[in-house]
């Protein structure tokens, strides 16, 4: 019966073209929002988590009550005391700050120690030009940011009234946050951000990773203002920022519920309009399972088309946002993966099935004699 069920389902889609179009359109819009939201959240936290895991960073330190890494502050004295521990093999100190250009677009300034040594560990690759020299007003600009701001290597950018910085190279990173940033010498960026003697975050790589618990206890005990955690759970270090991503997860779930509600509404209407046909099919022996599978087939076709169109729309929206809104560029992923495409298909399939069940069960409850004579 699969062929006849499929034929019936597809003809029903064609029978009401306008309704089918708007159902697919609504689902596509909702799915594109869902895909963008989850991709942004995954890109931001996932990039950092991948970085930490890959490069074997063992401990992350930031100040105890900072809502985000941007508001974290580690004093010079504490910094020196921590890195003097013999158990530490390498460390990466960061200064991070926000800077607004004249056109009000935002970039993130990163000051780093020993950039040449740590760049690979941060997933940063020099694309053009050279690295900046320590103690100079030279900077590296993310390739994407350079393109958006229509700058080139050798240009000077004014990051404050008295501070002009020269672009000496461009870089690219698979951590999307870095692709909307400017990287410079730690001291110069500190001066620019007026954070002399302060560091936002400190990443530690231990000689023996097994000792991470012990070192964490030691740091948390010795430095009352600081909070050290294992890198494996970096989302904690994101502080309040992670709540934004929880919120994005909630919005993503709500969008899926809305998609289901649209489909349920479409099929409740369809059941009403097709009451007579459902009655005929029951009269000639179709079982409840067959009638339900007919509705599910139709619903799955609509939701999968909606999912695919939604995926294509989200790719377009992603491209548009990256080209036109550089200030949120750090939040956006490089692109969407084939895995995300299959995940979208899976979600479409599930929504299609779930949404058709209630109307289909309702359809099978109608008395056959009433259904047959329904006009």
């Amino acid at each position, binding site marked *: *019966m699969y*062929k*006849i069920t499929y*034929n*019936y389902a597809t*003809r*029903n889609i*064609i*029978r009401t073209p306008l309704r089918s179009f708007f159902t697919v359109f609504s689902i596509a819009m909702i799915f594109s929002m869902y895909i963008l939201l989850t991709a942004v959240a995954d890109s931001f936290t996932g990039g950092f988590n991948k970085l930490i895991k890959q490069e074997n960073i063992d401990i992350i330190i930031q100040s105890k009550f900072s809502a985000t890494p941007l508001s974290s502050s580690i004093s010079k004295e504490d910094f020196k005391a921590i890195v003097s521990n013999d158990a530490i093999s390498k460390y990466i100190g960061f200064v991070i700050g926000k800077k607004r250009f004249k056109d009000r677009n935002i970039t993130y300034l990163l000051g780093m120690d020993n950039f040449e040594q740590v760049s690979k560990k941060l997933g940063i690759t020099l694309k053009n030009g050279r690295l900046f020299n320590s103690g100079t007003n030279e900077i590296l600009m993310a390739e994407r940011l350079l393109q958006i701001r229509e700058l080139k290597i050798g240009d000077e950018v004014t990051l404050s009234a008295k501070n002009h910085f020269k672009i000496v190279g461009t870089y690219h990173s698979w951590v999307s946050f870095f692709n909307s940033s400017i990287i410079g010498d730690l001291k110069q960026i500190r001066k620019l951000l007026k954070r002399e003697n302060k560091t936002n975050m400190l990443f530690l790589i231990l000689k023996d990773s097994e000792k991470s618990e012990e070192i964490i206890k030691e740091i948390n005990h010795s430095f009352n203002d600081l909070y050290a955690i294992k890198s494996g759970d970096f989302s904690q270090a994101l502080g309040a920022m992670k709540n934004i991503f929880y919120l994005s997860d909630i919005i993503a779930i709500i969008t899926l519920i809305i998609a289901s509600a649209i489909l349920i509404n479409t099929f409740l209407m369809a059941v009403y309009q097709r009451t*007579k*046909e459902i009655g*005929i*099919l*029951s*009269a*000639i*022996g*179709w*079982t*409840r399972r*067959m009638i339900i599978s007919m509705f599910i087939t139709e619903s799955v076709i609509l939701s999968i088309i909606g999912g695919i169109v939604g995926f294509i729309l989200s790719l377009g929206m992603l491209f548009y946002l990256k080209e036109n809104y550089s200030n949120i560029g750090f939040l956006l992923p490089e692109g969407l993966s084939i895995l995300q495409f299959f995940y979208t298909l899976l979600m479409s399939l599930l929504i299609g099935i779930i949404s058709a069940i209630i109307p289909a069960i309702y359809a099978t409850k109608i*008395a*056959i*004699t009433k259904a*047959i004579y329904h006009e």
Partner: protein
Amino acid sequence: MNNILKIDSLYKTYEKGDKAAINNVSLALQEGKIYVLMGSSGCGKSTLLNLIGTLDTPDSGEIFYKDKNYKSFHTTNQFRSNIIGFVFQFHHLIPILTLKENIETAMINIKQKNKEKKAKDLLERLGLKSQINSLANCVSGGERQRAAIARALANNPKLILADEPTGNVDTQTTHLILKELLKFNKNTQCTMLIATHDLEVAKIADVIFKMSDGKIVGEEIRNKDEKSITI
């Protein structure tokens, strides 16, 4: 001959009705015979067919198919798809399916390859060869009714229940439909119960039941020689 169907003291009252639609009906149908139910509109012919076809349930009384009480059926869908062939008064085809697909909807337990062959064969026999792939809402009323007959015959039913099968067709189509029903009856020994006003249909009956106010008020047994339509 064995009874294929036996009805015992059947009652059916509709919620808003103040009198019984079916009032103490008892009858027996023998295998291979053609029965015709005659009576005025609203006398209970369609209700009786619906009850026999398990489309509705009686308030009281019992129906037996080959000594098996309907009440013992776990589900009625299988009974309808394997045993019953329905012909409705207004064809009741699915408008967005082709005539061939409409026939296939009734062939639930048949393989797809055999379904297509059988559907084509049935439609050809009923003079619908050129309309096999036409959508049901794109053919004439007579063609639709012939397709509905083909659908009723599709699952080789043991019992055909037809409600005014010639109610909305011309004389030529009436003869074609009756001829095909007679031929099917002769070849398969299938029992038929036909509700009709049409005296032409009554001519193919072995037994005519007369209904009035939900009751069987008369029974006329006809001789084979009286069948005026020949195959």
